[in-house]
């Protein structure tokens, strides 16, 4: 063990040669060396697995994409064995469902999160927090059943109402529905993007709410009291302190919810009736999504068909990836960011 050298009594402090800095070497014990080897190996192993998954998907998908060429992006049909396939319809369908779901989720989640963190009586607050956390862990198939067996029937009326009064907005128009004809069929409103989006929204909402509530509850107490001291009402305080503080978490939570909505399989597969055209009329029967397509088509797919499905899966993965990285970079840049890093 080296010792620090202090100037001796005889030596002057103004000694022109400064003491050499002591070299610090670490000699690891056997246990530590073993630990570092094992830990490094598990890191490398994870990297290997993840890279393998990515590479395998990429290579298999490449087979299909090189076969289809640029038309992979523009084709709407999905007949991989005939060589005529593309992700235009399914990817746009996925995005329509996820975006509609997020538009529904944001106000709902914000309101619930604000209620739990700001308005709820102290007695029931902990219960509500647990409830939301628990609902975030409920399997998606449960929401799917609810959507398919309960919500579907009750949404037709709402869909009809929206299409009757807001049909002049292009996305709300429905072909084949005539509000003046009492005998017009209701089936044009079933299995639509909208209904799938509502169920996905209810499924994603607890997750988004949990993230938002966490951030809202961390708004600094000093600033809250400052707002009150300046005469703010509760809502004024929320608008000027809580929401600006929690903005990063709100955006981050929403984006993470969007990532979940994009990848959701079972709910969408249960509700939609798949079609292979770009369907911007969200109230109308027929929708599609990448994950539902994989779930419904993998069984009868030929090897090339599987490659094509992988290409579609890869496209979905890339979109989710962009959304996730955007979310984390937005969250990291805001004040409340550090706390929502999960």
């Amino acid at each position: 063990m080296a010792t620090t050298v202090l100037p001796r009594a005889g030596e002057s402090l103004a000694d022109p040669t400064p003491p050499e800095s002591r070299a610090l070497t670490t000699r690891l014990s056997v246990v530590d060396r073993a630990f570092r080897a094992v830990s490094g190996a598990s890191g490398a192993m994870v990297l290997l697995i993840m890279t393998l998954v990515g590479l395998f998907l990429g290579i298999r998908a490449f087979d299909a994409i090189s076969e289809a060429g640029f038309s992979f992006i523009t084709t709407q049909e999905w007949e991989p064995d005939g060589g005529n396939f593309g992700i235009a319809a399914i990817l746009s369908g996925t995005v329509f469902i996820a975006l509609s779901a997020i538009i529904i989720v944001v106000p709902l989640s914000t309101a619930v999160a604000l209620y739990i963190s700001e308005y709820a009586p102290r007695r029931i607050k902990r219960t509500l927090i647990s409830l939301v956390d628990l609902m975030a862990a409920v399997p998606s198939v449960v929401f799917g059943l609810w959507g398919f067996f309960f919500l579907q029937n009750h949404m037709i009326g709402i869909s009809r109402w929206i299409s009757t009064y807001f049909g002049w907005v292009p996305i709300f128009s429905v072909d084949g529905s005539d509000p003046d004809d009492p005998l017009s069929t209701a089936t044009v409103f079933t299995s639509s993007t909208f209904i799938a989006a509502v169920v996905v929204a209810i499924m994603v909402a607890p997750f988004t709410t949990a993230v938002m509530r966490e951030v809202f509850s961390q708004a600094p107490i000093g600033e809250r009291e400052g707002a009150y001291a300046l005469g703010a009402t509760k809502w004024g305080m929320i608008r000027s302190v809580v929401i600006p503080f929690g903005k990063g978490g709100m955006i981050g939570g929403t984006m993470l919810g969007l990532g979940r909505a994009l990848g959701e399989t079972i709910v969408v597969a249960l509700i939609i009736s798949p079609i292979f055209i770009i369907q911007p009329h969200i109230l109308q029967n027929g929708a599609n999504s990448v994950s539902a397509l994989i779930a419904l088509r993998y069984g009868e797919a030929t090897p090339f068909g599987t490659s094509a499905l992988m290409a579609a899966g890869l496209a979905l993965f890339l979109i989710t990836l962009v959304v996730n990285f955007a979310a984390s970079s937005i969250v990291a840049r805001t004040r409340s960011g550090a706390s929502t890093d999960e």
Partner: protein
Amino acid sequence: MSIDIRTSDVVSETNAESLTGDEGTTVSGWAPGAPEPRPRKVGGLRRTDVLAVGGAAIGSLGVTALLYVLLPFSGALGFIIIAYLFFITIYAVLVSLDESKAAIRDRVAATVIHSIAFLMLLALVFVVVFTVIRGWEALINSNFYTEDMSGAGPLDPLTMGGILHAIVGTLIIIAIALALVIPLGLGCAIFLNEMPGPFARIVRTITEAMTALPSIVAGLFIYASLILMFGFQKSGFAAALAISVMMLPIMIRSADVVLRLVPGSLKEASYALGAGQWSTIWRVTLPTAKSGLMTSIILGTALGIGETAPILLTAGFTASLNVNPVEGPMIALPLATWEFVKSPEPSMIARGFGTAATLMVLVLILFIIARIIGGRGAGNLSSMQARRAKGRSRRDLARMESNQVEDKAVFANLTGIT
């Protein structure tokens, strides 16, 4: 609005009692002998508030009912929506009679937030209740938990057949997945925290990227590689691998966050006492992060148990009990639900709901365990743990004191000084 508060008033209202009590001085503004000022009531309900809400409620119902009588409107849902909109409007008008603009906004915002939150929480609870009610018929039969579906066809009554095979399948699949994911995930999370450097940065970035992998794509990967390429059959093991691919990045990420929260001062204290890296991790880092790590593991498990898509592609389908994960198809609860409700037969649909309810109960149990273990942060002990810690330190104290007495005795013997 002008505010005119004199300092003396504020002091006399808030602190008068404590000041006189502690020091016996009187504060200007409160003469001794005068009745003690009562603290002003803040918050609470005023009569006008109650009247405004009640009036708005009655008014909105009345107007909507009138509309329904006069105009060709119909539908219960429409009634509720229109009545709600009228309620907000009338309430805002009533409040505006004696409050400022800011107060109106405050009241309307509070009303909207309360109603949306109520509606949303109700919907969430309803999803759960709906599943249990629809599955009740199947759930009340004990054979539902003790038999598999090999002897029961779609037309058989609910007193035949059950989901034992799916329950066992789920448990086997998740056990294999956990056996793979926990060591690898924790190892990798510790690696990310303890050996920072360019390599760890790459691993962290890739892991974060893979959290975006849709679960169905994880299933498709195992399906295409293990089953199509290497010729394995669809089995519980393949399903467990698919679940692992999906769970691993999620688990690593949450464990990484938990480990990062361990205070650096604790680790430094351990190093300062001469502990090596491994013993610091084993005796300081992991025990401190234990509850957080358990929570992340259990919530990851709940996620893995509920996931249908990867199992759909890799586990195959069977109606009979199979306890061998590497041979023959195996089924799990979410997949069984999916298969049951594809049938048009009401009894099969009831079985599907029953299966979903069972799955939910399983997740609930996991969640409660997570809450019990992970409800507290590091250093916050439960009363039991606190008692044990106190006992330990009392024993330590006794040991030290006895040592001291011995030391003194030795010292006295050696030197002759008492």
